[in-house]
């Protein structure tokens, strides 16, 4: 097996074979999820805790559903209202939960590196569901699988990631994953929303949407993350939409069979035209959500296999 880690903390540490293994496994779960009876017993008896220190609807629901369909006991903890507010540190929270013997913890946290810190303190598997501006690995995996299912391959594609790159962990994870699998990645967006040092990333950077979208196979739009901004990045939503919002005119310079993606939640009329988002000829936004559950099932399945293998190895004479 290529994917043999205990945790999934980021794409950076995965090699291409491990990524493909997760995608292949997820493909099977897409089929399972389309059946009427979707339940499996792979994780039955295991406990999964979802700890979301940041608001989330879709990701948390996706992880919850994934765990339940695999038969795990799933607990959601509303961390924003919890002991963190009473002054407990992240490590103490981790130790407390660890003492309850969970098998899988899914964590989202507003600070980069925090999920890794937590993973160092617990005995079970940890899945990063987004840490600050760092990584969001399951999103990148589900995006990759969505592309592969739509395009038939996940290599030698020209892929544009557009918009608020600076504040996006989705962009970072995608950039790393897509480059690892041998795709050409372009970043398009206003200079104020490009992360520093971007010229050293080995990607093409564009400020103009039309030239950036020229002949691309895939367009990934990102949400303008107003909640992470601390002042003057773009003048206004309408000027942003005019210059970087995706509409049919701008999309016309892409390949004819281009697909349009968005990790959600969307700001219609800010980064993407509402009609285009619903256009079944291009938009795969709903497929991303569907595939998302399957990818998370695959990750949990593989992680639990890795852990039981490690235990077996330890017990062996």
């Amino acid at each position, binding site marked *: 097996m290529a994917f043999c880690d205990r945790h999934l903390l980021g794409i*950076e540490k995965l090699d291409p074979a491990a990524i493909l293994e997760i995608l292949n496994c997820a493909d099977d779960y897409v089929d399972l999820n389309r059946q009427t009876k979707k339940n499996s017993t792979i994780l039955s008896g295991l406990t999964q805790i979802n700890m979301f220190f940041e608001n989330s609807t879709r990701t948390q629901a996706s992880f919850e559903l994934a765990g339940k369909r695999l038969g795990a006991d799933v607990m959601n903890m509303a961390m924003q209202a919890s002991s963190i507010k009473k002054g407990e*540190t992240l490590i103490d929270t981790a130790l407390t939960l660890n003492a309850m013997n969970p098998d899988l913890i899914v964590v989202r946290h507003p*600070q*980069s*590196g925090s999920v890794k810190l937590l993973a160092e303190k617990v005995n079970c598997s940890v899945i990063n569901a987004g840490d600050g*501006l760092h990584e969001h690995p399951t999103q990148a995996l589900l995006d990759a699988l969505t592309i592969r299912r739509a395009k038939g391959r996940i290599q030698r594609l020209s892929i544009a990631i557009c918009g608020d790159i600076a504040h996006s962990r989705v962009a*970072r994870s995608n950039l790393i994953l897509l480059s690892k699998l041998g795709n050409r990645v372009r970043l398009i967006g206003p200079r104020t929303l490009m992360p*520093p*040092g971007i010229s*050293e990333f080995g990607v093409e950077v564009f400020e103009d949407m039309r030239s950036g979208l020229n002949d691309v196979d895939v367009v990934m739009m990102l949400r303008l993350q107003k909640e992470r901004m601390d002042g003057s990045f773009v003048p206004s939503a309408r000027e942003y939409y005019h210059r970087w919002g995706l509409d049919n005119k701008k999309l016309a310079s892409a390949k004819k069979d281009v697909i349009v993606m968005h990790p959600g939640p969307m700001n219609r009329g800010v980064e993407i035209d509402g009609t285009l988002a619903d256009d079944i000829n291009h938009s795969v936004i709903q497929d991303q959500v569907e595939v998302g559950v399957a990818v998370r099932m695959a990750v949990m399945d593989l992680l639990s296999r890795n852990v039981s293998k490690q235990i077996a190895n330890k017990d062996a004479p």
Partner: protein
Amino acid sequence: MKLLLKNAYLIDPVQDHVKLGYLSIQDGKISDIVYDNANINHKLFDNVIDCAGKYLAPGIVDVGVKICEPGERHKESFRTASLAAAAGGVTTMVTRPDTIPAIDTPEKLEFVINRANTVSPVNIYPMAALTCGRVGLEMTELGFLHDAGAVGFTDCDQVITNNKIMSRCLTYAASLDLLVQGHPQDSTLTMGASATSGKFSSLKGLPAVNPIAEKMGVERDLALVELTGVKYHFDQLSTALALEPLRRAKSNGLDVTAGVSIHHLTLNEMDIGDYRTFFKIKPPLRSESDRVAMVEAIADGTIDIISSMHTPQDEESKRLPYEEAASGAVGLETILSASLQLFHNGSISLPQLFRALSLNPAKRFNLPGGTLELESQADLVLFDPDAPFVLNRFALNSKSKNTPYDETLMQGKVIKTFVNGHEVFGDSLGE
């Protein structure tokens, strides 16, 4: 009481040489230096130490040490800091006023001086705050504080952003011929940042600041120094960009000097790795090219002083996500071993090193010691530059163990430290 230290390589930063010889101490002062070990009349001395060909240098004068008294004695006390200093070859600490509360009145300064005199085997000279509470609004009683023993004035890492207040403080300080130490950063740019902007911080998703913030801080301060004529010292520079205005100011004859922390000379941003919070310091670790530029600036004298920027932080304030974790690293005990890296890799000579560690800070803050001249205060460090060891942070004397060099292979060990002619730290010579 007459002490003889014989058979040592004497490092003289003034004469710029390293020569085998002996040095004698009488009444706390250096009484004799002879570059010859023959014909010593041992009967003239009460005590003779054979240094066995190890190196003897003026003790380190460490500018900008934070001792967490008053306020956070659980992180570091005068006693533990002094023990750490002695073990590290630091014979004089110039302390920072960024305690809780800040040292901004003569009464608080008196507390510091009393504590220092009662429990410390090494010399301690305090700096005081430039503005009350270090909040940049009202000037402290600079005159009274100076009379009470403050050797410099600084708000530490709190930048006075109001130029009118800053220029008045500098003008008043200049009228009393006081030394002011500044932290050259544009604080609107540095706000919230915990790394240096670039590929590394972007990949790690850490809020970052561009090095231009330091250059802007330097340029602003230099404009006001030119206006007021004050004696000014930059606590630490860390980027290549900031060196050009400093060189220009020095060649124009402004009375400015600059320091650099040992961490910015020996580590770069890549050392942060997977969010290791012991590497979170202020200003943040920089790129490798900046680090190299700092080493060159020490070698060519653009930067005058190397300091440890000793900043104790307890485990709790470091066991947090990177952004939330406290900044700072302890350095008193590692400053010499870490500095010797620069000697071993051929970047600087030993006299150059001790100019930056001992001579220049003593001169700039007008303190005794820092030199091997006759009749100067016998503050000395005897060390073996080659002895290898692996640093174990739990073996440090500091109460706080937040060193970035934990488990690092280092080269160069302090054997003995003398303050005022008295041995305040002693290891066996290994024979």
